């Protein structure tokens, strides 16, 4: 097992996984968080696998296992020592802003790029020496539609089928099945370039399933999609583990990782800065996030002073002029703080106490927020980067 795990003194955080996403969970995180962060320098192994699961896990349970994975581009590290443990049959999310090293990590694990350092075993195969054997068991849906836009949807799937060894007839039958299941049958004979973004993505994912892979890489599967298509792709991704497929997806959308992934690794500047379930990640920042919206914006300074005194933590102004945000140490103190506001005669128009969003987690871990670009802008940037 990873040395980092042993260095984590406390594993109770795992017991809180059952907590719902938007309800406050009271947990003893301070101790475990502290020891993790100290022990592993910049990497906080939040939750750090409970004692029980630690013993049950052996190498063969892992679809992906990397230690200190590195990749340099032009002498600069794009990926700078990443340790991953991805259990078989799970959905794992790599979360990070543009240029964090997500795509490079996926490209290495999918045998497209050679690592410059570290160790990596994918489905038990050595990444470099056993790349050919590994390629038979994995599939990749790249960041930009990895379909041939000049060909029709049907031809795309038949092409992959033939390359994988299906007979002409077998490849056609398989293509038909997939087109039907993915709702592309009506446009099967039209060129993929005429498809909408959502359809192209579905064709892209279908192309990865011509033979069902044991490990599927989805690099930013919903970047640039409208909300409806995004929901369809989410529906698909949730189903992919039905036959035991492990899914590794990258995303810069916090909500996406939250919605889909069993475990999430947060990546920034080529380094993993946190790993755990969505709940664990959120819990690491504090018991919950308190958002208070005042009736009068003019009372914000006064409210800040009162809240800080009652909570004993920093209270920040939101970009919205009436709102204040704070990470609260426990539920009870939040109640007291609100009561203190009422006592001071400061009217609160609404408030919420919930788990912190992943953006707040990201801020707490890195000191800066994730990029909040529009999907279109994000795509334009990453296209540039790919040139």
């Amino acid at each position: 097992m990873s040395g980092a795990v042993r260095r984590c003194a406390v594993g109770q955080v795992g017991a809180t996984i059952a907590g719902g996403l938007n309800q406050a969970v009271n947990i003893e995180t301070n101790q475990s968080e502290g020891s993790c962060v100290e022990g592993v320098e910049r990497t906080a192994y939040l939750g750090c696998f409970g004692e029980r699961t630690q013993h049950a896990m052996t190498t063969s349970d892992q679809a992906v296992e990397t230690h200190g994975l590195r990749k340099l581009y032009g002498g600069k590290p794009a990926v700078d020592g990443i340790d991953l443990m991805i259990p078989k049959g799970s959905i794992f999310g790599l979360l990070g802003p543009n240029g964090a090293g997500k795509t490079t990590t996926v490209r290495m694990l999918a045998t497209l790029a050679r690592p410059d350092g570290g160790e990596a075993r994918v489905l038990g195969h050595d990444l470099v020496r056993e790349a050919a054997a590994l390629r038979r068991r994995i599939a990749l849906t790249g960041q930009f539609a990895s379909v041939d836009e000049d060909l029709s949807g049907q031809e795309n799937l038949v092409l992959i089928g033939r390359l994988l060894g299906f007979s002409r007839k077998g490849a056609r039958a398989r293509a038909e099945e997939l087109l039907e299941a993915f709702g592309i049958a009506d446009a099967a004979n039209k060129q993929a370039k005429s498809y909408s973004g959502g359809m192209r993505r579905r064709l892209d994912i279908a192309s990865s399933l011509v033979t069902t892979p044991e490990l599927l890489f989805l690099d930013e599967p919903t970047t640039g999609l409208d909300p409806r298509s995004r929901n369809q792709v989410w529906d698909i991704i949730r189903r992919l583990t039905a036959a035991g497929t492990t899914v590794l997806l990258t995303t810069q959308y916090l909500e996406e990782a939250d919605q889909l992934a069993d475990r999430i690794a947060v990546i920034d500047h080529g380094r993993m800065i946190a790993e755990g379930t969505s709940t664990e990640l959120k819990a690491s920042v504090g018991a919950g996030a308190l958002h208070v919206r005042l009736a009068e914006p003019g009372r914000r300074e006064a409210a800040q002073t009162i809240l800080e005194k009652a909570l004993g933590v920093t209270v920040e102004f939101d970009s919205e002029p009436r709102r204040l945000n704070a990470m609260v140490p426990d539920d009870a103190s939040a109640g007291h703080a609100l009561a203190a506001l009422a006592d001071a005669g400061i009217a609160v128009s609404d408030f919420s106490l919930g788990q912190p969003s992943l953006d707040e987690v990201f801020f707490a871990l890195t000191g800066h927020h994730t990029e909040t670009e529009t999907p279109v802008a994000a795509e334009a940037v990453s296209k540039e980067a790919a040139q």
Partner: protein
Amino acid sequence: MSTIEGEKRIAGAAIEKVLDTSVRPDPPGPLANVLTFAWRGLLKIKHMPEQMFDAVITPVMFTVMFTYLFGGALAGSTEAYLQFLLPGILVQTVMFATIYTGFTLNTDLGKGVYDRFRSLPVWRLSPIMGAMVADLQRHTISAIIVFLIGLIMGFRPETGLLGMILVILLLDVFALGFTWIFVTVGLVVRSSSSVMTMSWFFLMPITFGSNIFVDTATMPQWLQTAIAFNPVAHLTTAARGILDGTVDASQIGLALIAPAVLTVIFAPLSLYLYSRKG
């Protein structure tokens, strides 16, 4: 560009039904991979027949223009010049068409689809070789059309249909070897427009600085010496020889030296560059 909306609701259960990790056919060999990728190339011609237009219109223009404008002056009569020019135009046509392989490859590599190909359990070079094989079909079609135009204008090969078939085969073999240069260029150069520019800079002198349009006997000595080392000139000589029925083994041998050498140098180089990409 019009888009098609997939209005149908996707049923999650239907997706689970098509998942089955146990269905995994035996992987096909490299040759089967190459042929499948060649099929991909042919599908592209099917979907975009307009790209054949390029491959056909230039040679037709050159044949008509040179024959009627310069034919009388160069060879005394347009008929006599056409007889001399046509094999050369065929060579030029195929040489120019080889650029497209590098150009298409360069465009293709920038797209996500090559990432998929690279993640598939197929022989590494098969996508590239498949494209090359598909382009042979394009070369063959262009050559047939040039022959047809020539025949209409009055070109009469001594060796008839057999001669024409042999010339097309020779051209295809030559093109296959030569294309490796442009595949390499396509792998190294960043943008597809610079692939075009670089390729033209290379192709213009070696096609015009040859015996395609005129007999080299009228040229200065230094140029004749240079042309003696020009593989395009050897190919043209061999093509003329085949169509006139005067060819000998040494002419064909000389014509095939260049493609053989180029393959030996550039095929492994392409493989190296391709596997290093990404």
